[in-house]
């Protein structure tokens, strides 16, 4: 799961060095447009729907991981 998530980040932000420490603060490519691209990729990859308030919360890798894994368990 974590590995799959990291791959989504790497693909979306076109940066192979990204790991679980990535956040909007330390990643230049994580701008508003790529945030949408990230959401689209996550929705496709995990077949989930991410709601607007959840999008706002997704400010770093761990937040994304928490939301997605909660959705997958539900």
């Amino acid at each position, binding site marked *: 799961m974590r590995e799959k998530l990291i791959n989504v980040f790497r693909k979306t932000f076109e940066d192979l060095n990204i790991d679980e420490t990535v956040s909007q603060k330390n990643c230049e490519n994580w701008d508003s447009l790529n945030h949408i691209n990230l959401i689209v990729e996550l929705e496709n990859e995990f077949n989930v*729907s991410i*709601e607007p308030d959840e999008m706002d919360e997704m400010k770093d890798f761990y937040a994304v991981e928490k939301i997605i894994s909660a959705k997958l368990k539900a």
Partner: protein
Amino acid sequence: MRFYVFRNFTVENLFGNPEFIYSGYNDILTCDYQSDVYLWLYFVPVALNRSKLKDEIKTYFQSIELIYNNVPANGTFLIFTLRDFYNIKYQNADFSVENEIDNFNRQVVQFAKERQNVKVVDISDFVCRYSVNQLVDWKFFCLSKMIINPKLATSFKSWFFEQFDKIQYKRKKCAIFDLDNTLWGGVIGEDGSNGIKIGGNYPGSAFLMFQEGLVELMNAGVILAICSKNNENDVLEVFRENPYMRLKREDFSAVRINWDSKAENIKQIAEELNIGLESIIFIDDNPIERELVKAFLPEVEVPDFPEQPYELLPFFSFLVEKYFSVYELTDEDKLKNSQYKANQQRDLAKSKFIDYSDYLKSLEIEIRIENANKFNIPRIAQLTQKTNQFNLKTKRYTEANIRKIISENNLVFCLNVKDKFGDSGITGVLILKRLSDAEIEIDTFLLSCRILAKDIEFAFLNEILSIQKQNGIRYVNAVYMPTNKNSQVSSFYEKAGFTLVDEELGMKKYKLDLNNITLKEISTLKIEKA
């Protein structure tokens, strides 16, 4: 290539960066002057007040006129048509928004028709593949002002570039067909020339429509050819005697009916027509033949053939869409098939003469050199895109590039050729760049392979160089840049009297001193001066 997008919605996710630069929403005043292509990509706003919406759409055409006056004249301007994604109706009989949209779409088509560098991209062609709920994801619309669902971004981008390729004129030149169960149902060898299925009821009706489509393709300048394992006389009998055949023997510019390998036959057809394998598609119902051709000639496109005759109509539209559609046909396209047929007659005439120069004189070749102008620039750009064999530097240009070259005070010429068999139209391009008052460089020199081997290349070059000499030019620089298709011209400049000054990795640089050379007159043809 750099694109500038005028937009009223978020479209960054459709094209990405960094080749694309975006205006502010609804901003028509700021503009990037360095782009090659300008896109006007507006979507009908999602509006609950329909009469306000109607008024807003009305302003779009005016804003396009404003933008057009603002963008550089050598840029290409692409206008997308409008489609309403949120078409609510308070009264079913109220068509005012639709009418305004129709009106806009008609206006831009007319606008493009009157201007060389303006083209229309029909958004309906993309939109019609999806339902509204697929097209718009209202979550992303509300959050990010994206009207096209970001999940369709990849499809949208590839659709856009398909359209853009058509505008830039990239298409196949020739379709080669098998016969039995491809152009008609059944097998001649078994069913006889009148027993094959063409016309009448299904499945003959399906093959008939397929043939009708191919006639249209031929009229649009696609070359048709046959490659079939059959007895030639049986096939000729079908063409001669079966009254339902829409295609006639003479519609095919090259024909190979024998029992040899199809790959070998296709290679021969390419040589006979003087076209590259990569501009050919091969159509055959037999999967084994298709696989063999794919294996031996990977450059040739070999689409899968439908299992059932009723699938021929969608198959035909797939062929057109994928391989043959263009933004607009040039006059040369419409003439092309008759030109290839005239070439066959020329070859026949050639066999009657023993002395080559007698033969050349008998062709009554006349060439006319023209400066580039707005009527021939599309064809000039097209030739730089498509010519592979007789092309000394193989530089590819768009119409916008050509206009830019001219605007920078360089010289662009094109060549018209006709002979007693027909008019080949514009078939050569020569671009000279000015280095100084006395020195020029040949930036592009190419001739279409339809007119090769008739000394036209020397006549064209010498005529232009002698004019340059009169205008005070002394030195001419030239370069041969090797590709895997143009080896036939690797020594062209030597033959034309140039001196080789440098050679590296096959690239040859030349210089010519016009004071030290007598440009030979070509006596076998007539030159009409520009």
